[in-house]
């Protein structure tokens, strides 16, 4: 009877020990995986934000009057709410647009490789693709800076440092204007340069030419 009792006790102990482990281990593994990333990001954000805040303040220090500072203090919290939604939207835009541009470049690169394999002259296509790649890389840098400025607007304590907040806003506006120009330039380049080059190659292939090049 006592042996049966000990057996039961052992089994119960084992279940009571393993059952929480079965729940804790998955949860802790996920948290422990994410925690260093979050901590690293938090540390970087704090130090980087301070540096950027100094730059923002320095950029507009002479241009923000006292009355405007007071006005910013009273309204900036509501502004930050609107900016937060923009910040979220920009994250999606950054991802989606980056993927679209990368897909275009990859299409061109793959085509270039296949044409080169059949000894087709691809120097024009290669230079066009290289130019497009530079434009896309410039866009990505601008987009990153723009998103950073918008994020900083949500992070800065605008009630105590309205000048830095104003500086971040002006920086975001500048990047925004540059981005409008940049993405327009990329679209125009693809439509007016890349596609005509491809049409020319298509015509040469249709003519039965095995080697391309301008003639």
């Amino acid at each position, binding site marked *: 009877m006592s042996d049966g009792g000990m057996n039961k006790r052992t089994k119960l102990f084992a279940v009571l020990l393993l059952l929480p482990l079965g729940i804790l281990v998955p949860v802790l593994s996920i948290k422990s995986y994410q925690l260093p990333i979050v901590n690293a990001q938090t540390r970087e954000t704090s130090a980087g934000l301070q540096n950027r805040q100094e730059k923002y303040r320095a950029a507009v220090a002479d241009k923000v009057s006292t009355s405007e500072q007071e006005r910013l203090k009273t309204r900036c919290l509501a502004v930050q709410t609107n*900016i937060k939604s923009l910040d979220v939207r920009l994250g999606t835009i950054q991802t989606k647009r980056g993927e679209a541009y990368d897909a275009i470049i990859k299409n061109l690169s793959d085509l270039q490789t296949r044409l080169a394999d059949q000894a087709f002259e691809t120097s024009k296509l290669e230079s066009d693709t290289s130019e497009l790649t530079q434009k896309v890389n410039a866009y990505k840098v601008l987009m990153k800076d723009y998103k950073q400025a918008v994020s900083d607007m949500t992070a800065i304590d605008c009630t105590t440092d309205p000048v830095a907040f104003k500086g971040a806003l002006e920086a975001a506006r500048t990047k925004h204007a540059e981005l409008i120009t940049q993405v327009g330039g990329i679209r125009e380049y693809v439509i007016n340069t890349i596609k005509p080059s491809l049409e020319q190659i298509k015509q040469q292939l249709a003519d039965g030419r095995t080697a391309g090049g301008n003639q």
Partner: protein
Amino acid sequence: MNPDSDPTQPVQPKVRPMMDVAPPQQPLTQTPVSPAPQTPQTLPSAEPSGTPAPAQTSSNEQSQPVTKPPKTRKNLVLVIIVAVVITLLLVGVAIFFYLRSNNTTPEAPAATQTAPTDDGRVGPEDIDQTISEIDNSLNSVNDSTDFGQNDLTNTTIGL
């Protein structure tokens, strides 16, 4: 005494012929003829009718082995619980390694490969396909929506 007069006692099949001798004083053992497990009891005529049932049961325990409660069912439940716990542990480990493998920089989405011609050479249709894919990628983004002119005006942001 008629056995049928006691409703608590099941009717015993009459396996023995009626005898004109005095009934046996000791409780009868089970006969192989009776298919159903007999409730261990004595003939009513052999014992007084007021004999309590537990006494009968306890006396019969000495003659028959006591059936233990089914332990296999309890063991099965424990085994199932342990199996579930082990499964959860394995799932947790799998999730951990899956998340770690997903932390690599996401690759750019692979563009649809231009389908090669039968002999593998690029033909005009391949160029058309490339142009079509480029158009699709370009049309998947809207410049005026993504970067509207009024995104950061004072009116729009509430300043």
